[in-house]
């Protein structure tokens, strides 16, 4: 459990930067070579590679090299961890609002009796 929390912290740190978020968004559409990923960002390649390194260390993306081309892709299962938390939040709201539906029905019933 502790590792899981730590992982999420790292993932969120990685996603706290707009460049890195944009990279992950782009990779959600499919794998891409580093050169292509770097293009929209008008920063030097060394700076961009630092961002990629943080993303890789967070486990959100992986990269592999074929010949002279390094290609990146997202690791779906890491994003799933985040989705799971959101699912749980949804479950909380669903349950809470089911109770409110019931309460409103009771309160309307009480009013009708008056």
């Amino acid at each position, binding site marked *: 459990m502790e590792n899981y929390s730590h992982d999420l912290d790292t993932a969120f740190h990685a996603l706290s930067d707009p460049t890195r978020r944009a990279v992950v968004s782009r990779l959600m559409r499919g794998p891409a070579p580093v050169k292509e990923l770097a293009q929209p960002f008008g920063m030097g390649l060394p700076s961009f590679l630092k961002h990629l390194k943080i993303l890789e260390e967070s486990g959100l993306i992986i990269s592999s090299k074929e010949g002279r081309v390094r290609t990146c892709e997202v690791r779906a299962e890491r994003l799933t961890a*985040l989705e799971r938390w959101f699912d749980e939040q*949804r479950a909380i709201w669903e349950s809470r609002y089911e109770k409110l539906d019931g309460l409103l029905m009771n309160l309307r019933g009480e009013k009708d009796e008056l």
Partner: protein
Amino acid sequence: MNFDSKLVFLADTTNHTITVRKKFAAGRQLVWDCHTKQDYLDRWFAPEPLTTKTKHMDFRPGGYWHYAMIEPQGQEYWSRLDYQTIDPIDRYIALDGFTDETGTVNPDMPQANWEVTFSDASGHTLVQTVITYRSAEDLGKVIAMGMEAGLTSTLERLDKLLLTLEK
């Protein structure tokens, strides 16, 4: 019920917001009261199987609601909602934070901004809650802490139990 009362739940990791939307089969005044009066809040705010206990409620700008969600085994999760803007019966804006039993806000934990709006929807009431964290890191902290606190695992256990019962 002859209208769409399904919950809409949108999570946005890029803008670190959660949006919750639902229609209720009641007039706006009653739905507003259920969100802003202690007696009513205590009857619905905590998800199953938890219950809600209010320690302090002062619904006005600058006031706050200090409450706990309590597990059947007795574990308590304290929070408070600090009201900033109130426009009856249209909307309120509040800051949501983790506290202890005394109501002291945990300074290590990020607070989230809640904007809750109420509108008429053909005889029913639409409620929308937009929860905004200041940064993705803030949201990450809250997620990590939620996992540690075990509140989410309670729901997981419940889900598993329901699955078992369905078989």
